[in-house]
């Protein structure tokens, strides 16, 4: 949250996350290299440079597949949320691995002539109309440029100064980078490999990424369709959005009213409050978070807001929209007109049912 910038907002969770990422990369590269040396010997032996290139390439591609799966997995199952928490570091690590692959590839294939290696990369193969001879390296170069742009703008400074919508759009370029990389890898395999298993693995990765996105997207669409049936009765401003007992204590829930934005409801300390579902940080789903230390806590990166006024606790200054809310019997009713960010709203009191 924004008070003053630091290079990295380290905490225990992030250190463990980064250690796992770094350890995983080193382990993968080591196993790939050792297996390559052990399996391909004699006349079939592969040079160290090519083995390193392939190890780094497959590692980066695998990491990108994992990154793209984390989002939909976290939407489908909350247990994946810890992976989402530090996904940006995973993205930067992916770029660095891809950069190492590109550096070795450009040096190995284009670095020994009189022509600038980058000029050689762009001019040595211009068969753009042939699938079997397509210059797939160019696709990898463009994908690397996108990954660079994303890694370079991953700090919160950029999120704040580009604005969340522009930052989000910029980082959605990852799907274009993924498409370019799938073609880069597929054409590379087509032109240099005979074995079908590598192509199959790429296909499996693409199918998993696409399927998870479709399932998560369909679930979100169903949620919004249910919400579109909710709207205030003529002459009334309140909408019945569900039962108090549907929300666990110190937890949140999400509703959509009409065609409006999603509203997050929170039950805590015998009260119910309503805010926008969109976190001011990266648009995380606040309603899927919980109340920690009396504050709504975003499940993505832990940004916090007070439920009664939508303001971050001091010294932070972020504000989100709040909504008027009341409880009638055991039903929650919301006025779906958003109030200006940071507007204080009296929480609705809930009469707790006494167990016998």
């Amino acid at each position, binding site marked *: 949250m924004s008070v*003053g910038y*630091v290079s990295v907002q380290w905490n225990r969770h992030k250190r463990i996350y980064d250690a796992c990422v770094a350890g995983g990369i080193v382990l993968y590269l080591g196993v790939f290299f050792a297996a390559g040396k052990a399996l391909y010997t004699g006349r079939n032996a592969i040079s160290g440079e090519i083995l390193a290139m392939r190890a780094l390439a497959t590692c980066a591609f695998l990491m990108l597949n994992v990154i793209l799966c984390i989002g939909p997995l976290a939407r489908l199952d909350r247990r994946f949320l810890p992976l989402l928490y530090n996904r940006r570091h995973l993205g930067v690590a992916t770029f660095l691995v891809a950069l190492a692959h590109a550096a070795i590839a450009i040096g190995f294939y284009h670095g020994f002539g009189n022509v600038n290696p*980058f000029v050689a990369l762009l001019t040595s193969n211009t068969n753009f109309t042939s699938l079997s001879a397509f210059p797939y390296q160019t696709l990898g170069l463009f994908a690397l440029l996108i990954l660079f742009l994303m890694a370079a703008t991953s*700090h919160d400074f950029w999120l704040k100064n580009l604005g969340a919508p522009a930052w989000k759009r910029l980082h959605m370029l990852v799907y274009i980078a993924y498409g370019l990389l799938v073609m880069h890898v597929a054409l590379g395999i087509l032109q240099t490999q005979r074995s079908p298993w590598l192509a199959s693995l790429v296909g499996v990765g693409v199918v998993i990424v696409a399927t998870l996105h479709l399932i998560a997207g369909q679930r979100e669409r169903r949620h919004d369709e249910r919400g579109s049936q909710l709207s205030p009765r003529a002459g009334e401003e309140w909408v019945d959005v569900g039962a108090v007992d549907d929300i666990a204590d110190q937890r949140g829930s999400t509703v959509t009213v009409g065609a409006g934005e999603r509203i997050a409801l929170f039950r805590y300390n015998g009260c119910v409050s309503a805010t926008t579902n969109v976190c001011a940080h990266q648009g995380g789903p606040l309603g899927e978070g919980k109340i920690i230390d009396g504050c709504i806590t975003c499940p993505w990166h832990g940004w916090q807001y007070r439920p009664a006024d939508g303001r971050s606790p001091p010294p932070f200054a972020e504000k989100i929209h709040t909504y008027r809310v009341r409880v009638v019997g055991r039903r929650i009713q919301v006025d779906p007109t958003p109030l200006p960010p940071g507007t204080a709203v009296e929480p609705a009191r809930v009469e707790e049912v006494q167990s016998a």
Partner: protein
Amino acid sequence: MPGLILLGASIYATVGTLFGAGFVLRGVERVDPAALGAPWTFRILILPGVIALWPLMAWRWWCAPRTRGAA
């Protein structure tokens, strides 16, 4: 043609690097007061992005209020 593209990219990156050095030392605090007193590691971390997006950041620096960051 590839030579021209590379020349253009090199000029863009060179100007971006020169601008970026000035921006992370002075301009960033004018554009975003939250960067006041930020450590040098933060400035190095944002430098590649400034080099990549230097026309935008130059515009932001130009438009930033003159009094910001003067404290």
